[in-house]
């Protein structure tokens, strides 16, 4: 593994404030500097609600997916309320998303408002390109608010979120005569029972290129990915919990349940979902909204699916990543107040409820998130329990963006399952990669 020889993205509050003044392309815009407490400089909609002009908004995904459909409706409603306002929506595919934003920031060509993956917001905020926003208007899902908050100031409206749960085939587990696994050990026991009683179907598969499943395992084992101590971070994989997480992953690989191709870069969480939809595996870690696609691909699975929250690790935790998106307003936008008004419109109860119904995500506000839970559904209460009670954010720091963008986790797991790394070497490698990015 290459350790970064270069320094970058160093966080200095003063430098960030200066960065706002000397913005990209040397333009002399005098944006208000991000203040330490954030409250004073925060952008907020004009209380009179009189707006005119144009704003450009970037949304992740494409216009045809559920999020896109829902956004188009919201924008039409917003434009109907404000006759002199015109909103241009541009869609950015998730796969190229971070690069697209980075290029735009370098070129000084940012939109007014954008959807930001919740693990990116800290990175952009530390670059000084985001405007602080005022989150006092509603109670937001804590984990989404936490990942938008940098040095006490909020830089994004929590828009929506969701967390991975364990899906399983009720018919297969019945046939094997077992209940869904509640712990790591039970995952192996259930898998063994399926192998013995059912055969011809892989109980549970893992892939090296699926970091959002692997990274939280250390939480379940009772550790931290990286623990913050003032301005410094202490990586947590070369610890008892970190070793347990890596051993668990290695043991899952060595069951032989996963196909050989699962070592390659191309085999991702989507491939695992395809395997499950094809009836090749009996259990799957997936985001709740993926269920629609899985059932579309294989209607026979309808009525044969169940869900439980993540199996508990030796640390007694069932936590996983709180995935989600923020709506961020760019500091350089000439229409910051209008952009903030659009964001607040999009997360308001009426829009949020309809958005959640269309997309299957949880809205970013607590009241609307709770309102979307359907107790009679097999999935909805489980998904809510996972997201509200057992979900955490990745370390909130600008350095994390570089960590997630790099191929470190995938590379380490590939070396581990190929036998080129021992558990200790893999743990040390992850920690040194984290450390080098923190120090950069």
């Amino acid at each position, binding site marked *: 593994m290459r350790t970064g020889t270069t320094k*970058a993205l160093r966080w200095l509050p003063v430098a960030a404030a200066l960065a706002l003044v000397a913005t990209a392309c040397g333009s002399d815009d005098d944006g208000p500097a991000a203040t330490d407490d954030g409250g004073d400089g925060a952008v907020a909609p004009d209380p009179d609600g009189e707006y005119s002009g144009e704003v450009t908004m970037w949304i992740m995904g494409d216009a045809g997916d559920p999020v896109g459909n829902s956004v188009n409706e919201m924008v039409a409603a917003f434009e109907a309320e404000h006759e002199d306002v015109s909103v241009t929506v541009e869609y950015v595919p998730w796969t190229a998303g971070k690069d697209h934003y980075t290029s735009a*920031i370098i070129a000084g060509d940012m939109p007014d408002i954008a959807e930001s993956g919740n693990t990116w917001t800290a990175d952009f905020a530390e670059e000084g390109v985001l405007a602080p926003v005022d989150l006092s208007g509603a109670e937001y899902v804590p984990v989404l608010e936490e990942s938008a908050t940098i040095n006490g100031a909020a830089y994004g409206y929590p828009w929506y979120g969701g967390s991975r749960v364990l899906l399983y085939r009720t018919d297969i587990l019945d046939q094997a005569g077992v209940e869904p696994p509640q712990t790591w050990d039970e995952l192996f026991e259930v898998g063994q029972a399926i192998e013995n009683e059912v055969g011809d179907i892989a109980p549970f598969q893992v892939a*090296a290129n699926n970091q959002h499943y692997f990274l939280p395992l250390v939480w379940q084992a009772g550790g931290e990915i990286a623990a913050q101590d003032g301005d410094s971070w202490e990586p947590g994989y070369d610890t008892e919990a970190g070793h347990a997480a890596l051993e668990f992953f290695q043991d899952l690989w060595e069951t032989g349940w996963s*196909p050989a191709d699962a070592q390659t870069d191309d085999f991702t969480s989507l491939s695992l979902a395809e395997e499950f939809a094809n009836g090749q595996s009996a259990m799957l870690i997936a985001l709740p909204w993926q269920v629609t696609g899985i059932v579309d691909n294989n209607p026979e699975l309808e009525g044969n699916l169940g869900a439980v929250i993540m199996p508990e690790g030796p640390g007694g935790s069932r936590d996983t990543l709180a995935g989600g998106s923020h709506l961020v307003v760019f500091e350089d936008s000439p229409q910051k107040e209008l952009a903030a008004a659009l964001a607040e419109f999009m997360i308001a109860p009426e829009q949020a409820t309809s958005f959640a119904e269309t997309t299957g995500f949880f809205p970013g506000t607590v009241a609307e998130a709770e309102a979307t839970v359907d107790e009679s559904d097999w999935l909805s209460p489980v998904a809510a329990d996972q997201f509200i009670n057992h979900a955490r954010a990745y370390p909130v720091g600008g350095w994390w963006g570089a960590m997630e963008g790099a191929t470190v986790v995938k590379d380490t797991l*590939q070396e581990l399952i190929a036998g080129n790394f021992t558990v200790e070497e893999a743990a040390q490698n992850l920690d040194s990669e984290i450390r080098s990015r923190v120090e950069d």
Partner: protein
Amino acid sequence: MPGGRRGRSLVPRPVRPDTPDRSPARPPARSWRRIFDDKLFPLLLIAPALLFIIGLVGYPVVRTAWLSFTDASGIRALTEGEMDFIGFANYIEIFSNPILRRSAITTVVFGLICVVGTMILGIAVALLLNQPFRGRKVLGVLVLLPWAIPQIAASFVWQWLFNGQYGVVNWSLTKLGFSGFEDFSWFTQFYTAFAVVGIVVIWQSFPFVTLALLAGLQTIPNDVIEAAKLDGTTAWQRLRLITLPMLKPLLLVLVVISTIWDFKMFDQVWVLTGGGPARRTEVLSVSTYVEGITQSQWGMGSALAMVLFFILIVITIIYIKLIREEEQIS
């Protein structure tokens, strides 16, 4: 960008006939008009083209070279010039870091293997198509198809053919009795991964060679071949002693073009392996993208691009030498 420097060298310079110097004797008095005609006018004529070349080739190359000696990384390096000069540290890193060193060596070795494969297959198919037989035209069109398919699309198709679980290659090999290929993962091991990449690259690049050589073959006068036949030569002798030597200038150009294409190859590797597992199947162009773009290490990415640039320059210089020798012989 290694593109700009090679344009002038690809076409052999025509041998200038010995024409008498037609420029008239200089008049004793210098006139401004003459200075304009001789010096300024030509400059004015090439100025637009020169501006484009400096803007689109010169500046990027110089900028890349400069960045390669810095530790530029992250957004701020480009928005605010926050970077330090670090001399050859990036280049030292390339040759001391096992991943990047492997990438550089793979580029050269694998690139050359692809060139040899492309040329052999290209020559063989051109010779076949040069024979009169039924269905020659249909075959000629079919041979061109791989060249006509976009590289990305073709690479995805090949990826599916070699898919471990569902690929038709593993299925066929298993049915033929090679049970070791059941669920065999081609893209997990270095050698099997590059075997597939090599097949795809050669499959995509030989049609161009074939097409060019077929045109070249038509220019060989029939009476030379007939005379050789009367002398009792075998087909192999005619190929080795007449056909290939007569095509030598063309073959040289094709070798250089193939070399440049194969050393820069990106799409096939990126689609088929993504450079993985664990960055073990990268070539320089992929490493440049991974370091420079996905990890925002502009300095390191530039250094990798410069290494590829210099490898290609060296090859181009060798080519120019060969062409010059060719000119001197003729």
